Structure formats: C-alpha cells, structure tokens
C-alpha cells in the first residue's frame, strides 16, 4: 500500500435531487485503526460508506481506499475491502456454510479452500452447529454474525460496517463488539458507522461526527469529550419551581435537562474550586440545589455541544434497560 492511510477523502459531495446528503466531507483513517462515523439518522453515513465502498459515485471530491482511488481504481479497491450493510446480505434459502462457500468462490478461492474457509469462519463465529441449516431458520443475531463472517471471507484490508448493531439485542451487540475488537487486534482497518455514542466510544480510536452532511468534529473519544469541558456537573433541584428558576438562569449553558428528575447538567472541568463556584453562582441562597454529582462528559454531551441538538436514538434507551435487565 503506497499510503499509510487506509481511507482518505477530500471534499466529498453527494446530492439526491435537491437533497444535499454530503456537503464537503474530508476524512483520514489510519491503517489498522478502528474509525467510527457517528451521526443521527439521515446524517449521510450510509451514503459516505457507499461512496468509499465504490457502490456509488460522489458528485464532487476524491477518495482513496487502501491506497487506490475509488473511481479510477475501483476494481483494486474492491479486492481489498468488504462491506457489511444494514440489511443482511446472505441468502435465506442457502445454509450458512453454502453462503460462505459461495462468497469464497466469488472472492477467488479454489473450491476446497472456500470450503475450508467457510468451516473455519463458522467455527470462529460460534455458528458451526447451525452451519448446515438454511439461514431462514436462524435468529437475527446469528444472521448478523454470518453477515460479518461473510465480510471476512476474502481477508480484506479495510472492513466497512454500516450500523453493525442496529436492531440487535444486547447480547448480539456484545458479540459484534467482540468481533470488531478482534478485527482491530488482527491489523484490519475497520470503518464503522453508528448512531450509538456508546458504541463509538467503546470501539473506535477515532471518531468523526457527521451531521447534516458535514463533519462537525473529529478526534479521539477523549479529545471529543474534552471539547465540551471534560466533566459534567449534574444538579438535582429541590422542586419544580427551583428547576424552572435554574433552567431559566442557565439557558443555553445546560448540557442536559430532565424535568422529571429535576436534574440539570452543566459543563465543568471537575475541579473543586470550579464546582464550588458553579454551585454558588447557580444557588447563592443555598436552597434550590438539593444534591449534585460530577460525571465525565459522555459523547451525548459532546454531540449536543457540537451540533446544537441531541442525538436521535429512538430505541436505544429501551435497549439499555433491557441490557441492565439481562445482567
């Protein structure tokens, strides 16, 4: 590979009719790293992945993947990548083993080697016992694992995962996380998209936040958190009128507000002096704040601070509750 970058994009633009999906995106992903493209629904994540995986062309801008131009050297790129999209890309009516063997043949493996590779992947993904049943009889989590295994048949240098855990139950999500961690350990570059901040935080060494077709922030999870303030002071107010009063006073400075729990969060560096000063500023009469807590800022806070609107994650809260119940 002529370049140390696995993915580099400059000025990518893409519109569908009058809808501008990508509005000048620049990206650089180092070889062997895990990179997360984070953004709400409709931010342009899938479009970005499809351009990088050579499936569609950008209206403007250039991109190189694994050292090759995604338009001019499309075939070279395709030999070095795999794409696992949001929809399971396996045949329901073939067995898991047949699906993997077919993909092995398409990747250029001779018959016996394709068979060996299929068996090996089924084994590693814990699917060996189901391997000879048609995929139609498998659970959603098993299919997603097969889908991920399918992406590894050809031993790719860059793996694109488009929302790999969307719609999965908590246990299957953990499985996918383990796969991604394993990929990273083996030196493969992973480019994943997600709308889950927790997922990006946990898996990726670098995160780019995509919002409305633009990268609004990029850095390591720690760097992104620092851009807010590092920590968040949660104030639990005495009652509803105290909440209203403090909410009015803080206005746009509030990182987070939860009227139900009478809680408002504000940015702080976490030092005793600043927390004391903040408490005095918000509550000079020492009667509106009941309790307080200091947390490290989450990526949710970062997202809100960077985009001016909270993340859009309709079902994640429910997932988290299930996850807790599962334990």
């Amino acid at each position: 590979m002529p370049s140390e970058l696995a993915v580099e994009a400059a000025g990518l633009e893409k519109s569908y009719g009058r809808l501008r999906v990508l509005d000048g995106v620049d990206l650089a992903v180092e070889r062997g790293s895990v990179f997360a493209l984070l953004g709400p629904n409709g931010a342009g994540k899938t479009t970005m992945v499809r351009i990088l995986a050579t499936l569609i062309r950008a209206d403007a801008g250039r991109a190189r993947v694994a050292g090759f131009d995604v338009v001019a050297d499309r075939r070279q790129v395709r030999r070095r990548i795999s794409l696992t999209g949001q929809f399971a890309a396996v045949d329901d009516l073939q067995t898991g083993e047949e699906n993997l063997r077919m993909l092995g043949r398409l990747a250029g493996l001779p018959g016996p080697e394709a068979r060996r590779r299929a068996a090996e992947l089924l084994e590693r993904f814990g699917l060996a016992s189901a391997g000879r049943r048609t995929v139609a009889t498998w659970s959603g989590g098993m299919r997603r694992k097969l889908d991920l295994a399918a992406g590894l048949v050809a031993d790719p240098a860059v793996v694109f995962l488009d929302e790999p855990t969307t719609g999965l139950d908590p246990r299957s999500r953990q499985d996918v996380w383990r796969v991604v961690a394993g990929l990273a350990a083996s030196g493969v570059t992973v480019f994943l998209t997600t709308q889950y901040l927790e997922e990006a935080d946990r898996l990726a060494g670098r995160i780019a936040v995509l919002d409305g077709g633009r990268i609004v922030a990029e850095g390591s999870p720690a760097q992104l958190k620092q851009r807010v303030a590092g920590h968040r002071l949660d104030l639990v107010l005495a009652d509803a009128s105290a909440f209203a009063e403090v909410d009015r006073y803080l206005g746009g400075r509030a990182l987070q507000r939860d009227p139900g729990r009478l809680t408002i969060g504000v940015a702080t560096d976490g030092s005793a002096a600043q927390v004391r000063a903040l408490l005095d500023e918000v509550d000079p009469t020492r009667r509106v704040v009941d309790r307080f807590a200091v947390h490290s800022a989450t990526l949710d806070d970062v997202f809100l601070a960077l985009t001016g609107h909270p993340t859009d994650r309709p079902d994640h809260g429910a997932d988290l509750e299930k996850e807790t119940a599962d334990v």
Partner: protein
Amino acid sequence: MSELTVPGAARRPRRPDSPVLAAVADWLTMAGRGLRLTRRNLDAVLTSLALPVLLMLLFVYLFGGAIDTGTRYVTYVVPGVLLLCAGFGASMTAVGVTTDMTGGIIDRFRSMDVAGASVLAGHVAASVVRNLASTVLVFGVAFLIGFRPSAGPLDWLAAAGILLLFILAISWLAAAVGLLARSPEAAGGFSFLVMFLPYPSSAFVPIDTMPTWLHGFADNQPVTPVIETLRGLLLGLPVGTSPLEAVAWCLGILVASVAASGVLFRRRTA
C-alpha cells in the same frame, strides 16, 4: 465467538485478472447458487410445474373433446403447455432478481467486484435448467396420455433449439422485469402476463375459430410463430415462414431484454 483474532487466511485470494474470466467464473458460481435456491424453493417449483400439467390435463380431457383441431387434441396442445411452463418458470426468475436487488446482497456482490451481468446471467442459467426439467416432465405426461409426435431426429433437434431460444429470451425478459419491479410481489405479477399470452394464440385453439378482431393480434404476437414452429416440427407438418418469425421474435426479445437489463441494472445501482 470466544476468539478475538480473525481467522487468518494465509494469503489473500486472487480473483482472475481478466474481467472476462472473472465474469465467467462468477457466472458459474451464481448459476450454482440459483439452482440451490431453486431446490430449496421446491414448493414454488412444484406449483410452476403442476399448474401447466394440470392445465394440459384440463384441456385434453375437459375441453379437448369440443375443440376440433384436425389431430388428437393432446398432440395439438403440447407446444402451448411447454410455453406456459416457460412463463411460470420465468416468473420465478423475475422474483429472484427483484429479491436480490431489494435486499442487501447485491451490494455485497458489487463490493466484491462481481459484475451485474454475472448475477443476472446466473439467474437466467438457473431458469433455463428449471425450464428444461419442466419440459421433460410435460413431454413425459403428454406421452402417457397419448401424445404421439411424428418428428425425426432433426425435427426434434430443431424443436429443442427453438424452445431453448424462447426460454432464454423469456428468462432474460424476466430478469429485466425483475430489475424494473420494486418488490418481489410485483415481479411475481409478471407471470400473469406471460401466462396469459399463449391463450390468444394458436396454443389451445386454432386462431380461425376466434373472433375476427382478435386475429390481427393472435397472428402477429410472438407466441404464435413459436407454437406453429414447434407443432409443425413435432408433427412433421410444413412450417412455412414460422421458424424465421419465431427466431426473429426470440432474438429480438433476447437482445432488447439484455440491453434493457444493462441499463436498468446501472440505474438501480446508481
């Protein structure tokens, strides 16, 4: 899922360097896939086989007595039943193509550098094999109920050639329809059209028994010359210009469908 490392293939697999060789290898893999999917979708296959055979029995035993064709009715009707079968088989092809295009698998194939032509040609190859099986079945049942053709070896060969060309044309047409349809259900509706086409032709009743306003259509639609050619060859009758017309129609449909598939595939994947 206990292992954290990825199963390491010792070396990166090599696709053939020549795009043509790669496309042929992919086509064979795709045809194998199509046949496996056919085997797993046996109820649909059986329906597509049973219906034409039942129709044949229906026509021969219920309507045939009332239809005067100058020969035994079963002998008259066999070519029409063969074409009905081709229509049913083609509908499975259209559904298969639409399913691929609307699911995630086409993106995986394309990101692996598999040409769209290989994917479509794989469906068509499976379709042709399915149709050959149904043709054998129809001939078998027809022989059991009294079909006695008087064709020589060369006639059989010519008949098989025309039938194969028709099946190929209809299969590619089905692939194009599959690319056009937005859902597998819509693609399935295609069978209705193709299944209906043999009725206003000489497949089941002679055209001169139809109302005169229908003659123009029945005489000049693609199914009629194919039927006339098959019937003439199988029964040792003079075929006139029918073979030429049949070949022209089939080649026309084939070329148009392949060209349309190329355009539609590019549009669908843009």
